[in-house]
């Protein structure tokens, strides 16, 4: 059945687009928030050959973090949301400071604060009777619009408040009293009312797809000034007893 073959072929191409869309989104987000997962630096060198996988959505980002390789194994159901939490981890001077430490290590107390939550999802709107794909160009339109959406995601990452602490982590030669980590999941507890009071929401216009739509949304803290991220750790002076001139 040629028609049935065409439909399956089209849907196969579309599944590829969705799968790579999730992976590229994750790469873009982590690339500009979590320096620690890119030990060799993020920017791909000019002149280095571009891998086929990196050409997706015509945006060359270079090698991705290790978690990207596992994404396809973990995220088998394409309609499940991919939720990326960006977490500010801050060292607390002492336990009497009034903070509520959530992690205790040997030497210090740390507080984790969620500063951004990204939700990347493909919503499947197929009904009982799936309609036939109009033409072979429909997945091409979806792909073109996805390119534009990912471009704007890339730009927006650099305009949001969380980009500044990321830049500080990348460029600082001294130890800082904070770090940025992340969590990826397909389900998470909703925000409390108190948390939502200090957060803003940004939604990208969804990209229509033959059987649904792709969308990206963000809930984020638009003011990070209360975290005093401009300070660095001041180590007390120490006498080096075995110093040789």
């Amino acid at each position: 059945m040629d028609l049935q073959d065409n439909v399956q072929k089209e849907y196969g191409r579309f599944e590829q687009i969705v799968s790579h869309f999730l992976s590229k989104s994750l790469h873009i987000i982590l690339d500009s928030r979590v320096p620690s997962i890119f030990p060799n630096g993020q920017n791909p060198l000019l002149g280095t050959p571009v891998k086929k996988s990196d050409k997706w959505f015509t945006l060359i980002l270079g090698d991705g973090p290790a978690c990207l390789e596992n994404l396809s194994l973990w995220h088998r159901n394409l309609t499940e949301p991919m939720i990326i939490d960006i977490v500010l981890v801050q060292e607390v001077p002492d336990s009497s400071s009034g903070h509520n430490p959530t992690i205790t290590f040997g030497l210090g107390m740390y507080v984790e604060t969620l500063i951004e939550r990204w939700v990347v999802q493909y919503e499947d709107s197929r009904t009982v009777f799936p309609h036939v794909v109009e033409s072979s160009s429909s997945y091409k339109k979806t792909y073109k619009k996805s390119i534009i959406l990912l471009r704007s995601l890339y730009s927006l990452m650099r305009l949001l408040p969380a980009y500044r602490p990321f830049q500080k982590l990348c460029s600082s030669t001294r130890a800082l009293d904070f770090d940025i980590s992340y969590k990826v999941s397909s389900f998470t507890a909703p925000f409390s009312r108190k948390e939502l009071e200090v957060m803003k929401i940004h939604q990208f216009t969804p990209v229509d797809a033959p059987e649904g739509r792709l969308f990206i949304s963000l809930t984020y803290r638009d003011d990070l000034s209360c975290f005093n991220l401009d300070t660095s750790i001041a180590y007390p002076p120490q006498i080096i007893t075995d110093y040789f001139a």
Partner: protein
Amino acid sequence: MNCEVCPLKELELEHFEVREVLRCVLHTIFFHRALGLVRPKDVDLELFDITYVQCGDLDLEKKIEEKIDQFIDRVEKHPNKKYQSVTYLEIRLKKSGNTVRAEIVDSGSSRLGFNRLVFSDRGYGFTADLQSDSSVKICLSFYEVKNKPGTWFPKKLERLYWEQWEINLNVVQQQKAHSSKSHHSKVVVDPGESAVEETSIRRAALEASLREVLFQIIKFVNEKKDHVPPIPNLDGISFPYEITIPGSSDSAFGMDMFKRMLQTGHPTMLS
């Protein structure tokens, strides 16, 4: 096909800020319209705390710089509202409660209109900045080249514009005016500190406006995607474009009067 037009919020800036601001806005638009294969390049502005993205296309970078050079050259050659040096003005202070207002009058005691009078009340000190404005709209358009209908031989090609961006810049030229000390009042001019403070306020406002413009670009490219044609070229800059600098608008009010006053008026003391 519809031509989608996006007029961007007007940015008020000084001459030395033009290059950075234009680079930022133009490159940001191109990054969202260069749908071929690109290696994005992050650029931190020197004058503002903003990072924008370039496509990493050297030809495009060169063409943008050429256009910016043309624009700056044009602004320098045709400032329109450039002041002659101000030697003297009569400035009257009127106090109402805790507010001090400054009113500039000419020697004939008729009120002059200026584009803008900015002053700060710092007790007994103030500066008055008289500004002349030059508003310019730079257009970045994307188009397709098609055969003109109805023509067969010779074939004629026409440009079908599908998107136009309007970058509105208001290039401000400032000149300081100082009050003269009068035996009737104890006004003391303190231009240094207040000038620094004003510059700082103005710079912060421009940064916020520039950020708004970048968000405006992102919003527009997200909301309007249907009019974008199929991608013809999978390498870098995919669509043909043109950057034009139409005639500037004349936004001054009363400038001719002011120039006449400078030529014919005589100094008067503060009243």
